[in-house]
């Protein structure tokens, strides 16, 4: 993992999440912005996936359990597409909040992944 990229990812996911939760409760249906932001979060996860595959070849290895890291990463990658599909099928305000919940979950999961990679003592 590359630390600055992790923080970019967390900030984007958190901002996208909080925004979607707020506009969702305000009554906004899933639109190009909230769906697009969730897809951006997914795209960054895909980049993270590629980076996590090649990073060990450059000596950048997880200090914690690689298996736990991958369980988090694979679980995280499943979440945004599920939320986007939900948003496309059911077009009401609650789907926007669901998009927000998905993005916030990713922010937390990426933070946990960074802990496993950088500071885990196990």
């Amino acid at each position, binding site marked *: 993992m590359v630390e600055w990229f992790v923080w970019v990812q967390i900030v984007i996911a958190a901002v996208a999440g909080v925004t979607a939760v707020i506009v969702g409760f305000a009554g906004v249906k899933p639109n190009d912005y909230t769906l697009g932001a969730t897809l951006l979060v997914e795209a960054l996860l895909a980049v993270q996936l590629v980076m996590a595959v090649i990073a060990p070849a450059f000596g950048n290895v997880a200090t914690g*359990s690689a*298996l*736990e890291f991958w*369980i*988090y990463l694979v*679980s995280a990658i*499943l*979440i945004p597409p*599920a*939320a986007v599909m*939900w948003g496309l099928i*059911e077009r009401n305000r*609650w*789907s926007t*909040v*669901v998009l927000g*919940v*998905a993005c916030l*979950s990713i922010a*937390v*999961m990426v933070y946990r992944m960074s802990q496993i990679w950088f500071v885990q003592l196990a």
Partner: protein
Amino acid sequence: MTSKISSTASGVGRVLIAIYAVMALGATARSVFQIATKFSEAPLAYVLSALAGLVYIVATVALVRSGRRWFRVALVAIAFELVGVVTIGTLSVVDAVLFPADTVWSSFGAGYLFVPLALPILGLLWLYRVRSSQENR
């Protein structure tokens, strides 16, 4: 109950289901990892962790499905979670050896931003609202 959408899955209940689904995925995946790699360190805690994950799955399904029976299943599952997080949360503070810090209910779910503590309370409030709105019909 003839409507296609169950009453517990309507409106803000949708959001509750999404959070339950994420917690079900997170807690179950993590406990599978823990049981597979370090079960002997804290067997009781990891088994309870897996149980918590399964209960999240049950709660997610029960909230999605409609009907009186599923409503009751959701009620039991969510109440179980509240008892679990309060009991294990307290035990983890009192006896840190028996319950290490990395299970879903430890320290009242602090490792999951206290979502495990907040979720069953919100869930019970939601079920109560759904039931009272049905009785008024």
